[in-house]
């Protein structure tokens, strides 16, 4: 019997094609790399880094390193509304110093800075994240355990992570509770004992350890706006041997409280945040990585306090102009029991603006202006400042991303000024930054 084929059955054909598998590997990442030169001769000099020094005059044309993060994640189970996934992130970077002036550690294909760690000198490799997630287990939240960057908050143009309670931990993200979402996590800090500290017995337990408990609540207000409150409480947890020999100030807990308001503005957004911290959590307000370290044996013991105000955003003007901007003010009051704390004991104000003009779908020009001034709290400290003007010609697929479009190829020239701009004041180079 002949098969009866009436009309074209597109369905039969299409139905035989499975929809795209939900368990494809998700590949995300970030990279920056390039080359630079001091106009007066010598390698590029930068005044900020991707780490503790952030970029208080803005990061455009102020990056002397190569840095990359490669993140692989996969959903491994999906049934009955429950999904499980695994995420890992490896990071690699060339050497960066802790000081306020960075040398350029990039060179030929194998070599970086001679003094740095391997591989092949000057390269650093690290497992930054290794965690698993479970959704649909506790309400609509995501349960996670492992090593994770977590719910970081950043100001991109300054490479400043004003909240970064990252590390090994366990927690629950974005559980609907009332009109908003609640998140909670337990994370730890562990540091090797500072040899300069006298007296703490670390035999058998070379790490001094703190627990941090982090609770957040985010809720929409006034329609499109959003308010988020964050509280982090840090408390050392010492072994009996450590407790017996540590001074009392190393046993105190401290906290960081933060409130942030987000609002849509001019086709983009504006965020205003205020942070207040006590004891060792002051550390992250004065450098980079707010909420990361609770280590009163390093810095900020004895009732130290500090606060920071931030306002930042990305907005658009018409079809061709976008603007990223940031303003921060921080002040600490660190008990100077340890002279090594002095470099966190100061007051700082900085502002960065990065307008960009889009010529067409691919080409844009950006100008970044940055200014920072700070003054140490100790008597006799002078106010010092640093300024930067960077002009960059950029190529990136701007069709949709605009300010956020990557990869972005740049030719830049930077000029620094102010008290802290040593003799190295004009740099130029080429850089690419990408994230995906």
């Amino acid at each position, binding site marked *: 019997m002949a098969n009866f084929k009436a*009309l074209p059955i*597109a369905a039969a054909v299409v139905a035989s094609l499975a929809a795209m598998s939900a368990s494809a590997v998700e*590949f995300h990442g970030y990279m920056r790399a390039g080359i630079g030169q001091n106009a007066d001769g010598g390698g590029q000099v930068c005044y900020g880094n991707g780490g503790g020094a952030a970029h208080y005059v803005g990061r455009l044309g102020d990056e002397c390193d190569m840095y990359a993060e490669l*993140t692989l994640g996969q959903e491994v189970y999906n049934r009955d509304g429950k999904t499980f996934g695994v995420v890992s992130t490896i990071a690699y970077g060339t050497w960066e110093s802790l000081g306020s002036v960075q040398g350029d550690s990039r060179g030929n294909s194998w070599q970086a800075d001679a003094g740095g760690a391997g591989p092949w000198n000057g390269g650093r490799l690290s497992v930054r994240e290794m965690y698993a997630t479970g959704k649909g287990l506790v309400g609509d939240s995501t349960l996670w355990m492992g090593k994770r960057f977590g719910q970081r908050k950043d100001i991109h143009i300054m490479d400043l992570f004003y909240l970064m309670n990252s590390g090994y931990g366990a927690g629950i993200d974005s559980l609907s509770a009332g009109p908003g979402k609640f998140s909670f996590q337990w994370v730890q800090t562990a540091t090797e004992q500072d040899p300069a500290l006298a007296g703490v017995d670390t035999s058998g337990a070379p790490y001094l350890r703190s627990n941090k408990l982090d609770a957040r609540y*985010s809720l929409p207000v006034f329609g499109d706006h959003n308010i988020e409150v964050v509280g982090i409480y840090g408390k050392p947890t010492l072994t009996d041997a450590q407790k017996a020999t540590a001074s009392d100030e190393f046993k105190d807990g401290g906290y960081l409280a933060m409130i942030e308001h987000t609002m849509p503005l001019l086709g983009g957004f504006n965020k205003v945040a205020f942070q207040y911290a006590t004891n060792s959590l002051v550390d992250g307000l004065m450098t980079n990585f707010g909420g990361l370290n609770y280590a009163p044996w390093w810095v900020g013991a004895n009732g130290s306090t500090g606060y920071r105000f931030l306002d930042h955003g990305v907005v658009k003007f018409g079809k061709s102009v976008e603007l990223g901007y940031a303003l921060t003010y921080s002040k600490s009051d660190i008990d100077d029991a340890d002279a090594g704390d002095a470099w966190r004991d100061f007051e700082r104000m900085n502002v960065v603006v990065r307008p960009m003009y889009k010529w067409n*779908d691919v080409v844009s020009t950006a100008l970044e202006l940055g200014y920072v001034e700070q003054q140490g709290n100790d008597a006799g400290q002078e106010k010092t400042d640093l300024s930067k003007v960077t002009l960059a*010609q950029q190529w990136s697929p701007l*069709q*949709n991303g605009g300010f956020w479009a990557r990869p972005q190829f740049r030719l830049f*020239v930077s000029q620094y000024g102010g008290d802290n701009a040593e003799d190295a004041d004009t740099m130029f180079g080429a850089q690419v930054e990408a994230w995906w």
Partner: protein
Amino acid sequence: MRGLWFACVAVALAGCSSMLGLESPGVPDRDAALAMREQAVPCCTAPQQLKFTPIDPKFSALVAIDGSEQLVEFKSGRSFVEAWRLPANRAGYGIVIDSMIRGEEVFSPALLLLDSQFNAVQYISSEQFVYVPAKGMNGDRLNYTLNIPPELGATYLVVLTTDEALSGSTEYIHPARAYAEAQSLSDPNVPNPKAKHSPVGLLDVRVEGTFVTPVGEQKDVVDRWVGSLWGEGSAATATETATTAASAEQAARAVPDSSAAMVVAPAAVATATAVAPGSMLAETEALYNDMITKAVAARDIDKALKLVEEAERAGSASARPLFVEQVKTLK
């Protein structure tokens, strides 16, 4: 000296703005495009009058709809169209159509497939396009994967948009949110923007040699669409079913785009004048019915369908019920 040097480099950089840039399509913004749409003169009142550009089996290109295209006054609204003659392909193949979201605007496409006689064989309404978020270096877009089996007999593809689509918008993921997801940051708590649907836009079109797995969740295309977006005349309210004999009784699928039945283009002159059903001469009606019966018996369903459509255009009211009856009893 330093300052002068700095200024020279700055000027040199700025001056290179367009020379070193890639040529990018100049697509007007939505307001300008709506004005162009009103002012443009419609080119055609029937599909036969469209100028179709042939595309080859390896076609892959960015196609800008910028207001210089042919304008057709469909029943669903005025639209600039892309009109392509599809590659002659014995095997089935797929066409992936991405409409890129740019500057908070996007062209919301609908697709019309025509056979060699310019009869509509398939219509994909704009609601069937799926929003696909930016991934890697590919931007946010509206996507549809059109898999064309050879039995469909599709020869021409017309890409258009409708008034109903133009009144809508597509919510897409804010680029700051995509950045946060990629970089393990907390959600930025900003509302997602909405891209307004525009009469112009940028398409990324790719023809593949075989069927293509859809990127997004697409509704399965089940039925052969019979209807018309052009003026009055051959608009059918009943459609054929694309099923085996066992389910030939299934109700026909309605005209999918409700707006297609709404507005009748005022200036359109129908090529086929509307003829009231039942007004056909008895002899010619019988003639058609006979030919339909013979075609079904010979299992030439394509021909039978064409006969039914012709007969209906001429005013037959019995051709279609007869065809359905014939198909039911076919073994």
